[in-house]
């Protein structure tokens, strides 16, 4: 039980560091640590398939893509834009109001039923694969078209236009 609270504290701590770090590279490294704590959450919930997918897709693919983009656009600290102090205060205030509103409207401080894993192999690959390829076969196939169109779109957007390139 205390494992969950320790990992939850680490998640919140690293996600605050993500948005406050001055250097974007440090932000990305803290984001990797945040996603690692999410992987530990998935393992604690015995969702082993999601833990592995989170590890490979998020920490392996998406964050490497972020790091590559940052390397390509070559930011330095002098060009790092900073918002005015009042805007920052207003942003933090607005986010805090959102958290308080969510917590109070859902009565989150009240006691509730504990999360109990009734079926121990709920999140295993075998069980999820049966659900995915029976009930969700059409969305699975459609998502392949989504990935293909995203790939074509990314290539089209990121290549230089030969007419406008000087």
């Amino acid at each position, binding site marked *: 039980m205390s494992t969950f609270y320790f990992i939850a504290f680490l998640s919140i701590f690293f996600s605050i560091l993500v948005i406050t770090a001055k250097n974007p590279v440090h932000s990305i490294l803290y984001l990797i640590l945040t996603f690692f704590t999410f992987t530990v959450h998935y393992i604690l*919930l015995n969702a082993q398939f*999601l833990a592995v997918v989170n590890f490979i*897709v998020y920490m392996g693919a*998406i964050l490497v893509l972020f790091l590559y983009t940052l390397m390509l656009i070559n930011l330095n600290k002098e060009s790092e834009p900073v918002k005015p102090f009042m805007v920052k205060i207003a942003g933090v205030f607005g986010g805090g109001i959102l958290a308080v509103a969510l917590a109070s409207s859902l009565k989150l401080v009240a006691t509730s039923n504990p999360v109990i*894993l009734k079926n*121990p192999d709920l999140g295993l690959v075998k069980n999820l694969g049966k659900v995915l390829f029976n*009930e969700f076969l059409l969305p*699975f196939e459609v998502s392949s078209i989504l990935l293909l169109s*995203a790939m074509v779109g990314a290539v089209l*957007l990121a290549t230089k236009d030969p007419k406008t390139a000087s």
Partner: protein
Amino acid sequence: MDSLTNTIHAVPLNHYILLSAIIFSIGVMGVLIRRNAIVIFMSVELMLNAVNLLLTAFSVYRGDASGQVFVFFIMALAAAEVAVGLAIIVMIYRNTNSVDINVLNRLKW
């Protein structure tokens, strides 16, 4: 693995919702207070992950595997979104030589 999953038994569902709400709010704050387009993008990823964690917790709570399949689809969607979004950021950087979103407030050059 049995001893590991036994540790979760006493955690109330509300604490999972609270954790996800806090991390989602941190993501909203990140979008509001930063001007670097890449950091704003990372805050959006943070919000997506908070929702993923909550869907998994609900899936375990209800004993229904559909929630975890939804998380799988959200991850595929996030991969597509990141590819297109980062391509747009690279294109913006090539045109304006910065990733400051205040340069883009007129949406034209």
